[in-house]
């Protein structure tokens, strides 16, 4: 009955989830999720410390959701990277792009957030393209949320305007989405099937680890 209530409750929200090619919701099954930040190529005029802080705060926004079991931890050797892309290959008005890798059953294995380093105009406040505003949106993708085109106030709404900082703070739709994907255990019991652990294909893991190491070597070369 409680599970049914939660299901009906969540259905009232407009959040969307990211799915694998096989149609499974993409979800991390191991927390905390580690990540690292690579600011190579960052223009010298930008405040490195301020940018790192803004990125850390964007992860923290999702950790603070009550009723959701989400945690991140910074790790220098993580394969999950937020990086500054000064050779941006996509549309110049795309501010950032998140990739996630998952098994057919939806178990998330890795992520990559690329920040458009060519567009310029990044700021740490409302005077330009607020980095924390954009990064909080991207961390939603890291967690398996897709764009929410129905709620313009949501962090997961797909567009922004210069000077916007409101996406730093999650909307109730965003919070409902992360609670749906990462329900907190009540008395040791999960109330949603999406949190059941699933075996990870060893071949998929090997493929990802090898590729991740190759990528790391290229970047540090």
């Amino acid at each position: 009955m409680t599970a049914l209530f939660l299901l009906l409750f969540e259905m009232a929200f407009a959040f969307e989830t990211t799915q694998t090619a096989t149609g499974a919701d993409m979800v991390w099954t191991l927390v905390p999720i580690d990540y690292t930040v690579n600011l190579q190529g960052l223009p010298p005029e930008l405040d490195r410390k301020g940018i790192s802080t803004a990125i850390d705060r964007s992860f923290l926004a999702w950790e603070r959701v009550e009723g959701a079991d989400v945690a991140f931890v910074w790790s220098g050797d993580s394969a999950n990277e937020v990086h500054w892309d000064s050779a941006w290959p996509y549309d110049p008005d795309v501010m950032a792009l998140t990739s996630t890798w998952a098994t057919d059953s939806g178990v998330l294995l890795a992520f990559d957030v690329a920040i458009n380093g060519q567009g310029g105009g990044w700021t740490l406040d409302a005077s330009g393209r607020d980095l924390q505003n954009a990064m909080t949106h991207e961390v939603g993708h890291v967690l398996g949320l897709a764009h929410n085109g129905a709620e313009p106030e949501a962090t997961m709404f797909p567009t922004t305007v210069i000077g916007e900082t409101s996406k730093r703070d999650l909307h109730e739709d965003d919070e409902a989405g992360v609670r749906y994907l990462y329900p907190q255990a009540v008395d040791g019991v999960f109330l949603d099937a999406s949190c059941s652990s699933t075996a990870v294909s060893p071949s998929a893991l090997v493929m990802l680890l090898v590729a991740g190491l190759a990528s790391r070597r290229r970047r540090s070369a």
Partner: protein
Amino acid sequence: MIGLLLWSALASATTFQGSASLSELAQRSQAVVRGVVVETSTQQRGRNLETRYTIAVEDALAGDVAEEVSVTLPGGHLNGLTQRVNGVPLWTPGDDVIVFVPRPGEPISLRGIFSVQAEQIIDPLVHRAAYVPLTVPDLGALLDR
């Protein structure tokens, strides 16, 4: 009508700012085509996957193209692993799509890729019809067809 379409173009983005309209995007493209995905091929580059979609052209909404066009998009599905790049669709053979085909040597615009369902253009960035419904005839009119 054009104002509505401009709004829908603005809406189709991964944290976009000040996006160009669809008509401006069309002017920068070799062609705008509607067709059916007939073949997909996914390759691994480093840890990234990319998928080449071959599309049998059924209708050229703008420009002239051959009977088939191919576009390569980031992400895909290979060996039990899916890479999703948010806002980029994963198409399968049989999907009805609209693509703004880039000029030779130019990268594809992530805003110029759409699915079509019952003549309704589905924006993969928002996983549903645009806020203001955009139909294939609407797009044709926008492109002065």
